[in-house]
């Protein structure tokens, strides 16, 4: 075993520096205490300046129970009962990989490579052992594969930022928050969702400096609990109506920064026509918005004035409200307000856009071993470069949130492939995409499925073969955080693999042998491979000068002279450093979108009513809007079985007493939440922290259908829809339901 021993305490107790690679924005440094080959304790960052420590949250504090959980998979499994039953028998690696290789060859010969489907997610985000990259490389060299397009988390924000800035690096260093005079947090709860280890702490420090913080959210979040000077509850899905009305107030009262708009943007006049009612005869007044959002007109007007006259101000939208049918329009309206107030490219300001990324150690630069050539199934297609035409993305792929529909219907349903073989890695998509019951139906009908996992997840339960994968503590690797950093963290192997677990890279390498892919390059020496990967990418090559030191310290913090500010380059020198958009300016009006002629995808940002919102006629039958925010005690569905985490935040539905009492529901009652897609049971938690007419269930609880098809696990996607917005956002938050008290046996 190759480990980096940083410190020996006594009796052979060692501290190994590592981190985890969950689908989380933290990647916080961990000190894992190991004795006699076992993890006995976990500590966090010990950076000398305690105020600058990147402190791990409760999730990684519970890592020991995750690593040693009795339900961790330890051996390859072969299905020994109906799909979904969870009945499996232990087989050897040789048997498992031989069967898979034979199946792959058979499918390739009979149906062609496009019938091989790779479903990949964010479950392990590190450079060397990432199963997504390993399988892309393997299946490319096997002749190609079909896959999916669209990031479940952020596709709305990606589309919006591509439209208006043509750059995803719309964030500031979190330390720049202290340079603001006003912070508006719109649908953002960094107390729970870790986008940067120290984001919440930087916000607290900003507040303590006297900076006013306003939270706009249907829920009074834990972030609002500590940060909000003012909480403005809003009906879900109506954010854009309020933003457009704020623009109305600014224009009417001449509070907008016309000079900035003239110099740096195009299309503002068309937006004005829409806002003032020239375009459709409806002036988007605060009174108009009050009818839609339930936010009093006076509050909207005051916020518009305050935001327009307090400079600099940081308007922090995020990705959550865009995970809806409204999608990209939420971020586009937010970005337009930041341009109207001249806050783009300024310290203490914000360009909005929801992605919050800075170009240092960003996940979009992910280190990986690249495949030697393009996926043969995806060669010869029309180029998507620079285009906002979502349809181009679907020449060979399905949308991620349509994956199970595509598996179910294939070419007959208009998809570009018929799936006969699927490999699921780094995801629990049955649980985490829209419409879980449909997903289960699709996986029951799927010919053959392999799942590489640490657990028998609700998705894995449908696989023909389940392959056991090592946890982060069982391998050497290195990581980068999602978008903020700026730092890289090292993973040093703390313990031997549990049972017969292997990393996804090793699985791909051994499968390559079974497939006879001699040209598939292997990386048996982890240390050499990590050196190769660090040198491969410019940002790691330039920053990590001493690899041994990086691994010993467990972290490399990137020094930047002053807080990074998105688009400062462009704003300081637009003539020589234009935006990457076709016009070189911020495109409030997008000709690229206008050319698509899609009435649902307007070239200027707008409020548009969409399906399964408050005003959908379906609300007569299903009157409650269902929210599905990030849980604080797991990473999506990862860590779900860890008891230390389960007990600190029992799985409940947030319900306003107004909605509960009218249905005879009391606090703690078991309720049935239902719509035409599914039914689940969950305990009711009555709280004034949520706007009436909406309920909230944290995503990630595991689907557990009973004999009547009622999900006893409380998986929120049993109710959500497998659909996407015109820009490609997974519309999981446009979901109408009804609730009633559940009586067992009734």
């Amino acid at each position, binding site marked *: 075993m190759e480990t980096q021993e940083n410190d020996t305490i006594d009796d052979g107790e060692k501290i190994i520096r590592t981190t985890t690679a969950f689908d989380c924005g933290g990647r916080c440094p961990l000190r894992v205490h190991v004795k006699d080959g076992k993890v006995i304790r976990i500590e966090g960052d010990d950076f000398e300046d305690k105020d600058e420590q990147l402190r791990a949250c409760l999730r990684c504090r519970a890592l020991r129970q995750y690593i040693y959980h009795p339900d961790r998979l330890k051996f390859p499994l072969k299905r020994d009962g109906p799909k979904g039953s969870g009945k499996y028998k232990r087989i050897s690696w040789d048997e498992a990989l031989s069967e898979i290789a034979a199946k792959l060859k058979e499918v390739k010969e009979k149906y062609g490579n496009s019938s091989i489907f790779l479903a990949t997610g964010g479950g392990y985000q590190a450079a060397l052992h990432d199963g997504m990259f390993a399988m892309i490389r393997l299946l490319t060299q096997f002749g190609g594969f079909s896959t999916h397009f669209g990031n479940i988390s952020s596709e709305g924000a990606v589309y919006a930022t591509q439209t208006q800035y043509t750059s995803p690096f719309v964030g500031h260093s979190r330390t720049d928050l202290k340079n603001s005079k006003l912070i508006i947090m719109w649908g953002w709860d960094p107390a729970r969702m870790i986008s940067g280890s120290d984001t919440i702490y930087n916000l607290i420090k900003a507040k303590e400096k006297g900076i006013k913080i306003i939270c706009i959210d249907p829920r009074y979040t834990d972030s609002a609990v500590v940060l909000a000077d003012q909480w403005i509850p809003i009906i879900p899905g109506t954010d854009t109506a309020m933003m457009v009305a704020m623009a109305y107030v600014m224009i009417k009262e001449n509070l907008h920064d016309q000079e900035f708009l003239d110099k740096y943007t195009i299309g503002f006049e068309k937006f004005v026509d829409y806002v003032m009612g020239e375009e459709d005869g409806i002036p988007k007044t605060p009174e108009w918005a009050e009818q839609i959002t339930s936010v009093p007109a006076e509050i909207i007007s005051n916020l518009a004035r305050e935001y327009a006259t307090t400079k600099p101000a940081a308007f922090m939208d995020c990705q959550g409200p865009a995970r809806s049918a409204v999608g990209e329009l939420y971020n586009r309206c937010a970005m337009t307000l930041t341009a109207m107030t001249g806050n783009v490219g300024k310290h203490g300001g914000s360009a909005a856009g929801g992605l919050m990324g800075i170009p240092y150690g960003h996940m979009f630069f992910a280190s990986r071993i690249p495949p030697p050539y393009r996926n043969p199934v995806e060669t010869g297609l029309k180029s998507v470069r620079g285009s906002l035409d979502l349809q181009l993305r679907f020449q060979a792929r399905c949308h991620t949130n349509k994956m199970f529909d595509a598996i179910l219907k294939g070419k007959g349903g208009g998809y570009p492939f018929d799936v006969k073989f699927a490999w699921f890695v780094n995801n629990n998509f049955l649980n985490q995409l829209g419409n879980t019951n449909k997903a289960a139906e699709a996986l029951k009908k799927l010919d053959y499925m392999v799942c590489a996992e640490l657990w028998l997840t609700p998705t894995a339960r449908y696989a023909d073969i389940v392959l056991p994968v090592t946890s982060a503590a069982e391998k050497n690797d290195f990581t980068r955080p999602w978008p903020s950093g700026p730092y890289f963290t090292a993973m040093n192997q703390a313990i031997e693999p549990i049972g017969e677990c292997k990393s996804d890279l090793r699985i791909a390498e051994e499968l390559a042998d079974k497939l006879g892919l001699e040209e598939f390059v292997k990386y048996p020496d982890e240390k050499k491979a990590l050196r190769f990967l660090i040198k491969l990418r410019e940002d790691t090559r330039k920053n990590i000068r001493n690899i041994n030191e990086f691994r010993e310290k467990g972290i490399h913090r990137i020094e930047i002279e002053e807080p990074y500010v998105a688009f400062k380059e462009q704003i300081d020198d637009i003539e020589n450093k234009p935006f990457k958009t076709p016009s070189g300016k911020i495109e409030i009006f997008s000709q690229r979108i206008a050319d698509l002629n899609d009435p649902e995808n307007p070239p200027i940002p707008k409020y548009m009513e969409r399906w399964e919102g408050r005003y959908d006629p379906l609300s007569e039958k299903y009157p409650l809007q269902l929210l599905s925010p990030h849980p604080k005690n797991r990473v999506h569905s990862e860590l779900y079985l860890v008891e230390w985490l389960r007990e600190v935040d029992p799985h409940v539905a947030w319900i306003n007493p107004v909605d509960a009492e009218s249905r005879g529901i009391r606090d703690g009652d078991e309720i049935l939440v239902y719509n035409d897609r599914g039914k689940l049971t969950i305990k009711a938690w009555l709280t*004034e922290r949520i706007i009436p007419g909406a309920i909230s269930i944290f995503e990630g609880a595991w689907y557990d259908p009973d004999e009547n098809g009622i999900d006893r696990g409380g998986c929120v996607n049993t109710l959500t829809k497998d659909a996407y917005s015109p820009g490609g956002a997974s519309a999981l938050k446009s979901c109408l339901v009804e609730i009633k008290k559940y009586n067992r046996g009734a």
Partner: protein
Amino acid sequence: MQVGFYFDQTRCIGCSACAVACKDWHDIPAGPEKWMKVLYNEEGKFPHIFVSYRINPCFHCIDPVCIPVCPVGAIAKREEDGIVTVDSNKCIGNEECDSKCLKACPYDAPQFGTEIGAKMRKCNYCLDRHLEGKLPTCIESCRTRALDAGSIEELKQKYGSIKETNNFIYSERTKPSVVFKPKEK
């Protein structure tokens, strides 16, 4: 010297990293035995509401009422630092003595596992860490730096002497070793 805690209620997001870190450090299974708890308080009606969290370890009281009620003298207060400790070997278990320590404590600090006749255990201010000159693990796990610990006199000098906060009443009878920055309503 008397050790104690400082809790900045304005910074607590209720995440419970302190509670999980405590369970990991002391190897306590999931279940009712919680040496550190994060308590929740919600007041008011939508949209005018007030929410606060509050930590609940053992406050290592100046006059710990758990000590005199213990029928076997299993609980003691260390002279050198005022940490209230329990000798679980001496404890006769919650069945036999009917959890007298827990009933006496105004803060429910004494804890019991689920087994029949469970012995009392509780927050010991991470005595092992303390003896090595380190802070308790809860303090170092707090992402928002809402917690501090040390000599209560020094904590008072640094943070002030506010003895009460939302969802916490100072017991004159036991004199808990804790100071607060309360969250204003």
